[in-house]
């Protein structure tokens, strides 16, 4: 490097970086101002009593202490865990099954693919309202069909024992995005491997177990993690489907708090009861929980098989 070069301004020497940063600046500024700052601020607010209008007042860990004693906090946490524990595996399984079916070379393949993906592009609010009617215990499509079979269908969303399974059912119907990622993964599996396995005498089940699953394991991991994050943030459907006619989010989460999922309770605390500090504390607990679960999954992801070049 010559002396002349060194005398050049800092900007001139880092011209490329500066231009790069400048072009990235809308995003960088956006992230800092609308992403990072609110996230950090919410941690501060979680240590305060705060209702947006009044200046926050520091109360230390009081919000966290109150949460530990709040039965609805535990109830909502359990409801969300229920969806993750029972809903997510079912959803992933069904998505994989659909992807396998859609991967089969049959006539009208693209039509089937479109049909299966269609629910995923429909507006969530509209489909949720539709589902309220499909699941209606008296006049709904499901119970009418069950009635023809001589079965008195459950109360679905009106029954605390069936409301969460009903939510899971609705989730399975709209698994298009997960399915499409599985499908992409399936198409990446080299055909030669199947041929080799067939030559070695492997049947369809064995080929699936020994070739397909290991080859798409990175995709499974991806869908699992996205699914966990999605399940913990599950809000819109339950907000739409369980709110009473008065609306405004009041009454959502029933019957008997059986659909009061964690983000819904968080929302109610923040925007219905104006307990922003309390809601912020809930958000941070959720964040730490999800982070811990994801880290655990990564640590135990020995089953994931990455192809090396």
């Amino acid at each position, binding site marked *: 490097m010559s002396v002349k070069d060194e005398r050049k301004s800092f900007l001139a020497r880092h011209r490329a970086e500066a231009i790069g940063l400048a072009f990235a600046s809308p995003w960088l500024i956006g992230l800092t101002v609308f992403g990072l700052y609110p996230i950090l601020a919410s941690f501060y607010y979680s240590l305060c009593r705060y209702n947006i209008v009044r200046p926050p007042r520091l109360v230390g860990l009081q919000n966290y202490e109150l949460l530990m004693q709040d039965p609805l906090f535990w109830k909502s946490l359990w409801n969300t865990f229920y969806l993750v524990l029972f809903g997510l595996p079912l959803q992933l399984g069904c998505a994989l099954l659909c992807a396998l079916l859609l991967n089969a070379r049959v006539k009208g393949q693209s039509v089937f693919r479109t049909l299966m993906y269609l629910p995923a592009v429909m507006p969530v609010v509209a489909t949720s309202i539709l589902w309220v009617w499909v699941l209606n215990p008296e006049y709904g499509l499901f119970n009418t069909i069950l009635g023809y079979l001589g079965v008195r269908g459950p109360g679905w969303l009106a029954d605390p024992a069936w409301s969460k399974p009903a939510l899971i059912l609705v989730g399975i119907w709209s698994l298009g995005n997960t399915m499409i990622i599985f499908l992409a993964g399936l198409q990446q599996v080299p055909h030669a491997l199947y041929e080799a396995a067939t030559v070695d005498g492997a049947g369809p089940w064995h080929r699936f177990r020994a070739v397909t699953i290991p080859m798409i394991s990175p995709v499974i991991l991806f869908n699992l993690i996205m699914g966990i994050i999605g399940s913990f943030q599950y809000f819109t459907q339950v907000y739409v489907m369980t709110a009473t006619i008065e609306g405004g989010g009041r009454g959502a989460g029933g019957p*008997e708090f059986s659909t009061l999922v964690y983000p819904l309770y968080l929302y109610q605390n923040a925007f219905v009861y104006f307990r922003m500090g309390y809601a912020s504390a809930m958000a941070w607990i959720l964040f730490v929980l999800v982070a811990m679960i994801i880290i655990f999954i990564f640590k135990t992801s020995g089953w994931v098989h990455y192809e090396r070049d």
Partner: protein
Amino acid sequence: MTPRNHVWKLLGVASGMLLALALGCSEGSRKTGPVEIAFWHAWGGYEGRYLDSLVEEFNDAHPGIRVEPSFFNVGDKLLAAIAGGKPPDVATVWDFMLVTMGESGCFLPLEERLEEAGFTPDAYLPHIWEYGMFSRHKWGVPTTLNVMAMLCNNALVRQAGLDPDHPPQTIQELTDWAHRLTVQDENGQLQCIGFVPIAPIYWMWNFGGRLYDPAGRRFTLDQPENVEAVRWMAALYQRVGIDNWRRFSAGFGRLDSPQNPFYVGKIAVREDGQWQVQFIQEFAPELDYGVFPLPSAVEGQAGVTLVTGSFWVIPVGTEHPEEAWAFLRWLIAPEQSARFGARLRNIPPLRESVERAEFQEVLQDDKFAFFVELIRSGRARPMPATPVGQQLNERLTQGLELVYSGKEEPEAFLQRLNQQMNDELERALDFLGIEEELSPGGGSGGSD
């Protein structure tokens, strides 16, 4: 021109656009002409159109002010607008939000302005001045009032061998009607529900209980009278089976449609508001129905009922408080209030409005007049005003579901809720820094 120059040019354009955006946001230029008042209200349809026409009248008569009405979904949007420093100048809030938001500093206190303009406590119908008042401040003015009573489907009542001209006057009689009017088919599926209580508050009152003691600033939900009321409510649900009821009610049509379960004979007796007089005319003109007061369990005490409604507020942060008040003062004046109430079949909050010719016209309807009389005679009370009203509302209604399904005992539930609400109230008072002074109606008769 080298490609590099292109890059800098592009960046220049981009930053110019950002700057323009920023300037646009801060509204650099100020317009001259009439002062614009943003007016957010909660009435759609014909009600909204009527309110808009009132606003036009005001605008025509006040060339210096231009009120711009717009419909909005009352909720967190208003809070965000106030917190963001760009609130509407006049807005509507539901009653249960008023104290929470008001005591948090969202609205301008109106008590002095009201008094100067002659809106004194006794200008209002009984119990209405205290409505929404927790401390000495009035954070809003009632828009119009709604009041609850009992409605019964006369045809169903006769079918069951009962006399609609002699409606139940005691809780015991109402319970008897509820049982006799309930129809279940051979499989136990409900065809018609006689009566189940919807809101707990006035039933607690009618069992002689109180929810809140304003003098001590404490909830009293666990009073034995309240426990009795909840026990009675739960028994009515349990008699038909909570699961049956949930299935049955999930099939109800919208309340503001001809499919309203009361109109189609799925509910024989129901608590409902005075707006039903108008609704039934519109959606079920053939329906033969009767109205009667809520029965009381306390001997010698006439049943009391609940008055609900919304409030006009002037949010903190408005740039034109004087013009906003000028408009609000015009809107709540006896004449406008009477006309608005008459058109909506709601009840105007001022005594004078009720007496005005514009409102007397709608009082020709006996059923509507019956509802109005409930307020006029002081038998209708508002929800106790506290800064945790919203929590109480939700916790009480949702928690009762567990009592109805037998998962929690009435007494244990009310004790737990009472403790929880008192803790909440204490923390809210501490945070909001509300001085230890009570509202004018607080110490005396306003015990709800």
